[in-house]
């Protein structure tokens, strides 16, 4: 029985201290289930989007995906970049692989996301160029986008789920398949390396994703 590819399981819930733990009018389990369903619908819609033409990343697009997943559950927070509340910056703290981080300060957040998206769009245009390019370049560009947006942590919650859409959209725009991370600990370890490593820190995670794609067989 594979919980990852079958009927929904009951009893999943977010961390209690998470801002998106429980939506008004729903139990924590319903909140989780509804956001899983919204994310699934959004992922299905990426196929037609990629078919329509190259996907240009932008902060607005990232926000729209976050809003698609969480808008009905948390309308006040979904799709909104962290900013200032009562004059105070909305900082966010998170942990990856036993290390703590603070997301990009709200004052710099918009500029940082613009830069990350522009870097991806430029790399994507080069990769799409008729000159020979191998698929690893595409995976590496998608991985950089994923890790950098996650490091910036643009939202008060739901950052990984929203940024996972960006990773998938980036892979799709290169004609690559979406990927599932069966080894959660490995994902976190490699993401941690991407956050703090030196000398192309994205390479280990990119190679892991490339391996998932390369080793996949048609069902």
């Amino acid at each position, binding site marked *: 029985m594979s919980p990852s590819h079958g009927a929904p399981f009951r009893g999943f819930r977010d*961390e209690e201290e998470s801002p998106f733990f429980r939506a008004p009018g729903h139990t924590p389990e319903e909140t989780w289930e509804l*956001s899983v369903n919204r994310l699934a619908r959004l*992922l299905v819609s990426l196929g037609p989007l990629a078919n329509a033409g190259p996907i240009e990343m932008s902060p607005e697009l990232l926000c729209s995906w976050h809003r698609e997943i969480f808008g009905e559950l948390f309308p006040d927070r979904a799709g909104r970049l962290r900013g200032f509340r009562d004059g105070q910056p909305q900082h966010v703290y998170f942990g990856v692989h036993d290390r703590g981080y603070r997301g990009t300060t709200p004052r710099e957040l918009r500029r940082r996301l613009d830069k990350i998206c522009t870097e991806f769009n430029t790399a994507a245009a080069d990769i799409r160029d008729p000159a020979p390019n191998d698929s690893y370049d595409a995976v590496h560009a998608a991985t950089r986008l994923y890790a950098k947006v996650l490091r910036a942590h643009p939202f008060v919650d739901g950052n*990984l789920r929203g940024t996972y859409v960006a990773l998938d959209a980036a892979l799709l725009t290169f004609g690559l398949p979406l990927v*599932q991370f069966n080894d959660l600990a490995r994902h976190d370890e490699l993401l941690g390396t991407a956050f703090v490593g030196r000398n192309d820190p994205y390479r280990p995670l990119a190679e892991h994703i490339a391996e998932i794609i*390369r080793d996949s067989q*048609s069902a």
Partner: protein
Amino acid sequence: MSYPGTMSKRANSNGSQSNGSQTAYAVIDGKRVPLDYAAARALALNAHLLSLGDPKRAAEMLAEAERAERKRTTFA
């Protein structure tokens, strides 16, 4: 490193993209499957488990859910 067959949408020699509609795929449990709702749900659940940031707790939740599902199926 390249993966034959993965790039379903390639640039033509003049640089334009093929207009043909391409099937999107996902890798689920190591297998490449069309991106339908079931596959997308599996990916969405995976992303939610990753978002916990606690692989050990995620594994415990999965195991607990599997036990509950087995019990439900057995006594249904």
